[in-house]
């Protein structure tokens, strides 16, 4: 007998959002995931954030799986997560990692919670009796908690624990615990597990302003808070119910200031990097403060460079300016405490040449990351050395792939990331892990066969009701279970009522299983105490007993029973009310079940072929990543060669990359790979179909023919082009060049800088400006966004010039240096090399005049506040990145949205950065927005992974609950098509009817409401059912109970 292959298993260490995303991705393929977190909860920083840029809201649940959603939890992600293939291990440290890629042994240390969370009912009797009070970490010490506490107050299930450092072991909690689950002598437990790959997602620590050397200058009052603490203050669930109040005295704060770069961009403290997200954080907080606090709230941000480099970041900044957020480009030296407890800061206004002292009610410090310690610890764990920068060593082109095989990173370990990058990197890390596992002799978790419908499911509805007595809790409660049983039995649809003690216990479960196996009923209701905790155990129980998943419901008896529990002295009539309430709830659920059809999943065949549009680096990388895992790929490239923009223009980058040779190598791999079919000189003309079964028509421009490709999914990776300009006399002198022209000229030697005395570069040419402000050929040409690559590109070119000509004076005129992350070091290095950086604003744009063919520059020197005039030997313009002009056509062909800048619009800018709303279509690289080479590769890996997750199987199952069309009464008005947020519905002109894409449909019910006669309906959520529930809940009919 052949030995059973092991199930592919991956450790994801760190359950912040990027770790969670990586885990979900791998679970979706069918691998087993161990998701650990050192803290007692999951969710990382995001558990604290109610409002996230750019929508200023949450939407975290959008990172849950779209296809196969029924395998995962279907509730708010900030409350928790469940997925059948993910084992979540909070409060667990990874103590050691031994072995090699494909064969790691990890040692886990599960810290004692002192509470058996599987049995805890989460109601917190213990909390109320605990006499110890300590500062609550969740609210950054702004509130107090007990020694026994809920680490995230709103998580579900509420995973309580005892803080043993604070605990006095008085034992009050043990006495009061109704379920007897507190054990103050519990011990930490270690265990060894075998995994095939490791993903590190533990994030990094943030600078703590009260711990560090500068503390005395800033932390002068409790009203000076970190930006994360401020999140808790503005949170609706936070310290003051969302009111912006001062921690010191609870008074409403109206004058708020943010100080940027706290603990980062600091060479003196050996933190010469930018924490990347703090600018957006401060912007968002300032905007929210104004929106929540009212128009009279004054918000001031003290900054050096506003690093609004991401997609739509700049527009958000413009919005902040519009609503009156004040920006001061000055770093202040200290916060001072006024006698009246308000705070004051002094800054210098360079333009008006005066010092300004202003008072504030609160000051928020943008505290940056401190990565080195974390990286050092992780390197030790992996038995490797940190690199020269003190960070975990990664592969040259892959940000998520460590040089140690089999280990990957994502999220803030790569450098503080925004949500979008946290998501992309999580998916990319999962992708890299899955690439590794695809080559190993491992298997995926076998999907259970879809059960055959039982004959009795088609018979008249007969409901089996199981009610849990919940041990003594019910005894104390005033619900009359006897009366309830009698009442329910009178209902025609009820076949049997069983009252069981402790359904959650093993014995209880067995009893129920025995009963159900013998049952003649075809529908099942279990009334248990906490459905969020027990849902899955009970679901399995029902499944084992043979009940169809759709014909089974759990009802939360606890909310009714507990009321009695907490108020045991209710009057007799109150008790009767309560019994009636329980009866009505059960009646409603029975009415609902009665009308519910037995739903079955549909199985959709998957064409295991991918289409990749665009043969640039992102497209090539995605193609190769898929091909390596055995997916057939059609790669469509418009031109006659592979490589795209970076590979033709950039020989080497400042961080030591060599895009040209890298692209060349990749192109050879593509050409040689048996799984990749390259279509050169081809353009996409039209597409139809849905996940698993697309058909795309491509035009072969060389052979003048149309080719039809069948594919299961597609990745759009069309890339971008260098921006055009007509500003600054461009085109009127050979001495005025774009950065790309300079780069090429320097590489080929066609441009000689050895004699040059002065070279001036201008950044943001035509970028980060209102579209209408910049015109070219009568066209609006402004790029209302940051192109992200120009600042580092300009520095790279300047450094090259510096090498060739150490005597030249090089000026870089910039608006905000976008050297985020560790790129900050290049900026520092460039200054050290004597390159002079001069900032300008949109009001003080540099001017250029051609004198004897030579550009003469005039610009305002903002520090000295005086104009400088200087003749330049070369004027170099950073013209940014424009979207591919073909994006609009491709968008039309695939029915995908393109934004006003010409880039594709992803499904969700935070949570689904590489996906389109339509399942099965993905985006990578500059097609999404301008980005660096490494980021494009990251996205390509992520897009490939999303594609692979669905194309790795021959078929996928739809969810049970999806919408359908009743053709006979459908009038074809297509309101459902227009209203569907996922594009899951379409009108088929040939068939003359509405088609539902079952994999894409999320059963949100929008179509059902838009359709006035229910020709569109969600199966299992029909109007008929809901109206029956309304009837039942509002029913005054207590005949069932009258006999009591």
């Amino acid at each position, binding site marked *: 007998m052949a030995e059973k292959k092991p199930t592919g298993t991956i450790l994801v260490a760190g359950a912040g959002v990027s770790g969670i995303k990586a885990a979900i991705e791998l679970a979706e393929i069918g691998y087993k995931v161990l998701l650990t977190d050192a803290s007692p909860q999951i969710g990382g920083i995001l558990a604290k954030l109610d*409002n996230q840029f750019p929508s*200023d809201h949450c939407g975290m649940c959008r990172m849950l799986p779209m296809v196969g959603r029924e395998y995962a939890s279907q509730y708010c992600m900030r409350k928790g997560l469940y997925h059948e293939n993910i084992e979540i291990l909070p409060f667990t440290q990874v103590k050691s990692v031994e072995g090699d890629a494909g064969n790691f042994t990890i040692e886990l240390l599960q810290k004692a919670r002192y509470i058996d969370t599987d049995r805890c009912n989460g109601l917190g009797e213990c909390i109320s009796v605990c006499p110890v009070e300590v500062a609550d970490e969740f609210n950054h010490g702004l509130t107090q908690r007990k020694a026994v506490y809920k680490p995230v107050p709103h998580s579900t299930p509420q995973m309580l624990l005892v803080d043993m450092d604070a605990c006095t072991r008085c034992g009050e909690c043990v006495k009061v615990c109704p379920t007897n689950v507190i054990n103050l002598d519990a011990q930490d437990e270690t265990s060894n597990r075998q995994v095939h790959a490791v993903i590190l997602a533990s994030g990094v620590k943030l600078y703590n302003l009260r711990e560090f050397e500068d503390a005395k200058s800033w932390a002068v009052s409790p009203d000076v808070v970190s930006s994360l603490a401020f999140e808790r203050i503005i949170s609706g669930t936070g310290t003051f119910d969302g009111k912006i109040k001062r921690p010191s005295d609870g008074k409403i704060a109206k004058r708020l200031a943010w100080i940027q770069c706290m603990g980062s961009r600091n060479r003196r403290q050996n933190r010469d990097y930018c924490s990347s997200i703090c600018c957006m954080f401060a912007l968002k907080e300032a905007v*929210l403060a104004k*929106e*929540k606090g009212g128009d009279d709230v004054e918000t001031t941000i003290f900054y050096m460079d506003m690093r609004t480099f991401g997609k739509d970041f700049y527009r958000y900044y413009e919005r902040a300016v519009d609503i009156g957020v004040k920006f001061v480009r000055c770093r202040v030296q200290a916060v001072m405490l006024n006698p009246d407890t308000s705070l004051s800061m002094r800054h210098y206004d360079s333009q008006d040449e005066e010092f300004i002292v202003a008072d504030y009610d609160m000051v928020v410090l943008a505290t940056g990351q401190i990565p080195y310690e974390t990286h050092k610890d992780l390197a030790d764990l992996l038995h490797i050395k940190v690199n020269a920068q003190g960070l975990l060593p990664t592969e040259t082109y892959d940000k998520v792939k460590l040089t140690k095989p089999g280990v990957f990173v994502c999220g803030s370990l790569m450098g503080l990331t925004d949500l979008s990058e946290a998501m992309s990197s999580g998916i990319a890390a999962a992708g890299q892990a899955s690439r590794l596992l695809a080559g190993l002799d491992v298997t995926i978790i076998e999907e259970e066969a879809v059960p055959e419908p039982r004959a009795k499911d088609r018979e008249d509805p007969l409901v089996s009701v199981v009610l849990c007595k919940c041990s003594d809790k019910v005894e104390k409660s005033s619900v009359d279970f006897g009366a309830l049983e009698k009442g329910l039995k009178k209902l*025609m649809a009820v076949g049997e009522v069983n009252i069981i003690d402790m359904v959650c216990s093993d014995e209880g479960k067995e009893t129920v299983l025995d009963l159900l196996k013998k049952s003649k009923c075809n529908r099942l209701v279990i009334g248990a105490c906490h459905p969020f905790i027990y849902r899955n155990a009970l679901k399995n129980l029902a499944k084992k007993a043979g009940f169809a998943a759709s014909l089974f419901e759990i009802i939360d008896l606890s909310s009714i029973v507990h009321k009695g529990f907490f108020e045991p002295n209710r009057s007799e009539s109150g008790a009767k009310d309560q019994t009636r309430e329980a009866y009505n709830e059960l009646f409603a659920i029975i009415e609902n079940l009665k009308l519910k059809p037995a739903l079955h999943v549909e199985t959709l065949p998957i064409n295991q072929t991918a289409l990749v549009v665009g043969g640039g680096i992102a497209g090539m990388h995605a193609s190769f990543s898929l091909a390596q895992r055995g997916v057939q790929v059609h790669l469509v490239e418009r031109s006659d060669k592979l490589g795209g923009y970076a590979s033709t223009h950039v020989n080497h980058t400042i961080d030591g990359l060599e895009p040209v040779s890298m692209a060349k190598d990749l192109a050879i791999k593509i050409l040689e790979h048996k799984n990749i079919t390259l279509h050169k000189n081809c353009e996409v003309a039209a597409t139809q179909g849905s996940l698993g079964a697309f058909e795309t028509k491509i035009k072969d421009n060389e052979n003048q023919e149309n080719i039809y490709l069948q594919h299961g999914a597609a990745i759009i990776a069309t890339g971008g082009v260098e921006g055009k300009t007509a500003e600054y006399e461009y085109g009127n002198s050979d001495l005025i060049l774009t950065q790309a022209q300079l780069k090429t000229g320097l590489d080929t030697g066609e441009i000689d800088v050895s004699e040059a005395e002065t070279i001036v570069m201008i950044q943001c040419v035509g970028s980060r400006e209102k579209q209408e402000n910049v015109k070219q050929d009568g066209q609006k040409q402004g790029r209302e966004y940051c192109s992200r690559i120009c600042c580092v590109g300009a520095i790279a070119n300047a450094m090259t010039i510096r090498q060739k000509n150490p005597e030249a004076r090089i000026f870089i005129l910039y608006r905000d240096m976008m050297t985020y992350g560790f790129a900050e070091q290049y900026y520092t290095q460039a200054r050290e090399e004597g390159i002079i950086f001069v900032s300008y604003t949109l009001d003080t744009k540099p001017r250029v005049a051609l004198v004897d063919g030579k550009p003469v520059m005039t610009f305002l020197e903002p520090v000295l506040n005086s104009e400088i005039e200087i003749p330049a030997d070369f004027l170099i313009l950073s013209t940014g990145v424009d979207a591919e002009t073909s994006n609009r056509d491709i968008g039309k062909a695939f029915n995908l949205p393109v934004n006003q800048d010409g880039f594709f619009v992803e499904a969700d800018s935070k949570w689904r950065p590489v996906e389109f709303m339509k399942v099965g279509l993905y985006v990578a690289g500059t097609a999404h927005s301008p980005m660096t080479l490494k980021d494009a590769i990251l996205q390509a890996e992520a897009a490939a992974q999303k594609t692979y997750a669905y194309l790795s199987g021959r078929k996928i199952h739809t969810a049970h609950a999806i919408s359908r069309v*009743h053709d*006979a*009464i*459908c*009038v*074809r*008005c*297509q*309101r459902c098509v*227009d*209203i569907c947020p996922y594009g899951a519905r379409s009108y088929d002109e040939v068939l003359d009817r509405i088609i539902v894409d079952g994999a894409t449909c999320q059963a949100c019910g929008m179509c059902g409401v*838009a359709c*006035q*006669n*229910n*020709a569109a309906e969600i199966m299992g959520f*029909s*109007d*008929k059912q809901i*109206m*029956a529930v309304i*009837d039942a809940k509002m*029913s*005054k*009919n207590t*005949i069932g109970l009258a006999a009591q």
Partner: protein
Amino acid sequence: MANFTKISFKKGELNKQLADLFKGMMEKGVVDALLSPMTQPKRGVMQTLITHPAHVERIDPFAPVVPVNGAKIASSITATPSGRKVAMVLRSCETRALIELGKLNLAEFDDVLLIGIDCLGRYENLDFLNLRAQGESSESFLEKALSGDTKRNDIDICGACKICEFPVADTVDLRLCVIGAGADALYVESLTPKGDKVLETAGLSFGEAPGSRDAAVKQLVAARTKARDAEFAGYRESTGSFDALEDRLAACINCYNCRVACPVCYCKECVFVTDTFRHKADQYMGWADTFGTLKMPTDTMFYHLTRMSHMSLFCVGCGQCTSACPNSIDLMPAFRTAAQKTQARFGYQAGRSHDEKQPLTVFENDELVEVTGQVK
């Protein structure tokens, strides 16, 4: 504006003049077909689709009757392509309903020449037949109606028409104007480039509007609006409570005629006749148990309120619901008053323009904040 063509006619020859006009259009190939009210061989006037010019002569566009709101008919012949250009002679209430159906992909306007007529009201079908039997013609109706007199032997035009503030069709290509035109003439007005082209091809010249038209239209609209406001006020006074509404609808027998007659009740089959409302016996018993009694048939109030929520945003006030009720329930004011409020809430007016999006199909992040009254 000079886009009016005057067509004079001798007494009794209005329909002949119109027939000639349309015949010319068909013969010149401007349109391939004509949908127009036409005198039927036996009795009455019905919308009729004419594809042969020879049959145009029996048309009677101004006949004061609308047995079926023409929007439904127009929808049925344009929702799917026929390859033919068709001219449609419709009243304001019909064109406005048709525009709403267009937004629901149930009418297509590319191949349609919309011709609106000045409408002075319609009689209930039986009343109209009786009046015809008594020798009343469209011309005699127009003549008196233009002077404000619509009553014949105690029979008057329907309630909906008396309070209709849209006697003139607005969103059309051509308009057949009788208001302010004098007794012996009719004006054809072009409102769109499409209309201009048709008139050109048909060899009609462009001229000025009749001098008194504007004032006459304004006066009529003002009078109707005043009547409407008075009617609404009276209705709200008498039926502003749920009790009163229940009383008004008490005779409803769930025949659903009102929704069949409604031009903007566009569903193929009303949800109230689908399986959703096919209840099992124990359901009825359960309801009866609640109060001890259950009025049958059930769901009448539910039906009317739901229909209000479904169509009030599109309601054009044609009054066909009232006309259709076998138990003489005057539904029109019930629906029109609600429609007045719902449409106003969204600044929407059913049938005003092709470009206005139906209120429940567009959504903004920052709107209607008063609904929840919550700020971030």
